[in-house]
């Protein structure tokens, strides 16, 4: 039995679906952020799998840029959550932040 890229792509598809459904189902903003991280990681797995299959190093280089964007997104997103919490002093769920104003 040989490990082909189909295994990794199937795994990534399952992980991406779990993240996407979690993003839609959960209401806690922090958990929604974690689901976004799950989806980004699933995409990273496909990049590395194709990098191995096509024998091309650029797949691994691009994962670096995905990591940088994920880090920037988390930093800004968590700062926004902290700022919202400071203004509202109440629970931070997606339903509380539906007015596009502080």
């Amino acid at each position, binding site marked *: *039995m040989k*490990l082909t890229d*189909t*295994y*990794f*792509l*199937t795994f990534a*598809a*399952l992980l991406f*679906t*779990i*993240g*996407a*459904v*979690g993003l*839609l*189902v*959960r*209401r*806690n903003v*922090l*958990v929604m952020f*974690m*689901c976004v*991280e*799950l989806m980004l*990681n699933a995409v*990273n*797995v496909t990049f590395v799998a*194709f*990098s*191995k299959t*096509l*024998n*091309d*190093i*650029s797949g*691994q*280089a691009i*994962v670096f*840029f995905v*990591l*940088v964007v*994920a*880090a*920037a*997104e*988390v*930093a*800004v997103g*968590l*700062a*926004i959550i*902290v*700022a919202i919490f400071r203004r509202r002093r109440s*629970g*931070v*769920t997606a*339903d509380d932040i539906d007015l596009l104003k*502080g």
Partner: protein
Amino acid sequence: MSEVVIFFLMAALALGAALGVVLAKNPVHSALLLVTVLVAIAVLFVVQDAQLLAAVQVIVYAGAIVVLFLFVIMLLGVDEQESLSDPVRIQRPAAILLGVIALAEVLFLTGHHWATGAEKARGALDDGSGGNVERVARSLFTEFLWPFEVTAVLLVAAVIGSVVLARRSNRPTTDDVDESSGEKVSAP
């Protein structure tokens, strides 16, 4: 053979922990299960000959991003109970249905080798010039030099943005006046 065993172990661990991230009531449990997912994916990276990415995955994701999550969870308090009633009642079944449809589509695509690509467009995984780290570094600093510099700008912008957003202003600024007047308006 051992590769296959490691793959199935780590894939099962990652998928189970990912389900835990979504289903856990407590956000702290979600964050800790997220670490499990990330470490399992790092092991899968090693299986795929991406040793540098595995190290970076553990250091950046498990070491920095999840710690940031935990800081914010502790800062905000975790005793908030998430309300299970939904304003849009159909959303949860619809989300699960759409997830199943999307999964079926992607699984259908993975069974077919429609993904074409120019092989070795940017150089092979291992061209005999040192290990994985050197290979990735050469790619990053030659072909991807311009995107690499742009990510530096992106990171600086993100750091400045998060400092400005999360800053607590001590002196009375127009921001505070806006806040108090906003509360007065919203009170009645």
